[in-house]
């Protein structure tokens, strides 16, 4: 999907502050095309802030972000990046199917197709596909949000706390979808509290108080010692 020679994400001297509160100290980071990274750290460590800046939702206080060689927020970067937030944001008056149709077409996709149907089926939403997500439980809304993040074209998937609110079947489907996305050549960056997930990715980046304290290959048993008690 991505040009093999360009990293999926390249971040230089990136920082974020809110007045006198520093959310993210200056950091440099690269994610190779097709690579996978787990962002780990306690609440408030800066994982979501970093992801939202990579998605273009937050503006950096300083530093540069390039997505597949394009400045973050540019048309090309937006076409490349899919962001799965931890707080599903959905239209009140569109069904799951209408959401898929709309979001897919907004990204140049074909709308509701076999692939979309298969993702919906695997997340257990097929029976509810014509219902309004605004009347769903938190978990079902999260699944709808996952569908919307997956069915559109992308080569970089940013995922914030993907397993929160999911049942066992949903978690398993999410694991499989992330593996498939990677197998298709997309880069994946996942912020998670799930220690086991670090063993499914190429490398982990641990954050504490907005600073990178570890960047390398980690094991599930290392996570607590990495992020601090």
């Amino acid at each position, binding site marked *: *999907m991505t040009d093999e020679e360009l990293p999926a994400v390249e971040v230089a001297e990136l920082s974020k502050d*809110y*007045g*006198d*509160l520093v959310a993210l100290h200056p950091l440099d980071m690269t994610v190779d095309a097709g690579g996978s990274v787990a962002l780990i750290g306690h609440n408030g460590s800066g994982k979501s802030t970093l992801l939202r800046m990579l*998605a*273009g*939702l*937050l*503006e950096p206080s300083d530093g540069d972000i390039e997505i597949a060689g394009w400045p973050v*927020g540019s*048309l*090309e970067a*937006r*076409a*490349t*990046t899919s*962001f799965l*937030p931890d707080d599903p*944001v*959905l*239209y009140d*008056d*569109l069904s799951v199917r209408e959401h898929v149709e*709309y*979001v897919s*077409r*907004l*990204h*140049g*996709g074909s709308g509701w197709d076999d692939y979309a149907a298969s993702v919906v089926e695997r997340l257990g939403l097929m029976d509810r596909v014509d219902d309004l997500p605004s009347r769903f439980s938190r978990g079902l809304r999260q699944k709808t949000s996952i569908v*919307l993040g997956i069915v559109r*074209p992308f*080569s970089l998937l940013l995922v914030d706390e993907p397993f929160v609110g999911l049942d066992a079947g949903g978690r398993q489907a999410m694991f499989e979808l992330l593996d498939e996305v990677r197998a298709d050549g997309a880069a994946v960056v996942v912020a998670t509290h799930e220690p086991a997930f670090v063993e499914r990715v190429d490398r982990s980046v641990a954050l504490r108080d907005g600073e990178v304290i570890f960047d390398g290959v980690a094991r599930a048993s290392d996570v607590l010692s990495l992020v601090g008690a």
Partner: protein
Amino acid sequence: MPDALPVPVSVIGDLRRARRRQRVAKIHWIDALYQVYLVGIAVVAVVAVLSTVIGDEALDAAGIERVRTDGPAWLGVAAALAFFVGLRSGSRGGPLAVEAPDVRHVLMAPVDRGAALRGPALRQLRFAAFAAAGTGAAAGQFAGRRFPENGLEWILSDAAFALTVVGLGFGAALLASSRRLPSWLATLVGGGLLVWSVADVASSSVPMAPASAAGVIAVWPIEFHPLGIVPIVVAAALVAIGLAGIAHVSLEKAERRTALVGQLRFAVTLQDLRTVMVLRRQLAADLPRSRPWVRALRAPGRARFPTWQRGWRGVLRWPVPRLLRLLALAAIAGMSLRGVWNGTTPLLVPAGLALWVAALDAIEPLAQETDHPGLRDGYPLAEGELMVRHLPVPAVVMVVVTGIAAAVAGVGDRAVDASVLAIGAVPLAAASVLGAAVSVLMGVPKEVDELLIASPEIAGAKTVLRTVFPPLVACLGVLPVLMARNPPEGSTATDMAGTGALIVGFVVLLCTGWVRFAADIRMWWVEASQTAKDQAMGRTAEEEVP
């Protein structure tokens, strides 16, 4: 990646049309007609009140000359205010508040953001322009009755003035948003022009303020001056440039604004002043500092007066914008006090309101307790007692604020007598604090008010009382200055200020009593209602038993 970028925005148009069709299909026409009916009644009421206030007596030559010379400056303040509010709103991501899902799905998609946002922006502008033109035309119609010129000229020129004001405000917001103007710069530029306009009204020695040129439009029927064309061109240019650059709106600000504006509208419909204040602060990023200005206070565990210390801990974390706002409000109050002293009695309203708004900031520690009733109810003391203990810190803060207001009122030509200010400052501070405390503690109107169900004829009076009483208490604080203005024979201004201070003190005492016992009275009322209900049900049950 899609074959061609950007993805055509026709996708968005298709969806919006489909959603509109769904919305229209779901409209209950009886409800819609009822709303139209209510709006119609409100418009008729406003027109009737305005026509009574304005009257239709023709102005004499001197009056017409005064309107010609002073009118543009006065109306220029409205234009400057719109420009200021627009710049501030734009620096926070306004004037648009697109739907949250649109931010996430549309603005993050590879579509032309400009094309996606121009439609909503034009709809918002169209509505504002329509409302402004209607209001301006109505004002022109009233004005036309008092001037010898053709009524149609007044209608057209006043509608043009209102449209220009909307264009300046909306255009400034679009420009600030698209150019990502920093908030401090928006405040500096907009505030500077506003202050210039106010100074233009207050003094003839000040050069004509730029915004006064907009006011010229409104008096074109008396004298056509081409200067009025300039603000029309500026407003059109601002809107055009803003719309052209709308794609550069900040997603971070757009998302924050989207979430907050929705809640803000809901809070306004509930008349929930406290929530409106909290949300407005979030919208303006007016948040407490992480570190206090001064760190010399003792640790809470060792404090003899924990509520007092808790209050200061909050106050010492106030951000710069809040401090500047209090300064500005103090200046407004001071200038208004000077106006009251010099004979313009109605200025006691802006004086009282400015200090009431300042006090709403000052009573933040008390308001925090109402925001967290779970914590408040966990303390081993009565709710009212806790609230009374929270009053001294805001009182001290407001003494400082009224001190600044007094300094503004007491310096220069036609200044308020220093002894009157010395006597009146503390009652004024106390009245504003109690007015603000009462308004916060009254809270939101209950969904089911048993008193109103029992006596629906008092519903209107109660609503008015809830809305008007707190600011009225603050306005009452101006009484010492008002009474000292024209002391009766045998009395001095100082005597009258003292009498006024005593009256204000009495009201403050009553309000403090209300703060102390309101929760107890509410509890007593609930219990009494429940007992009465239980007794009534018991009687009914007895009657049903054969």
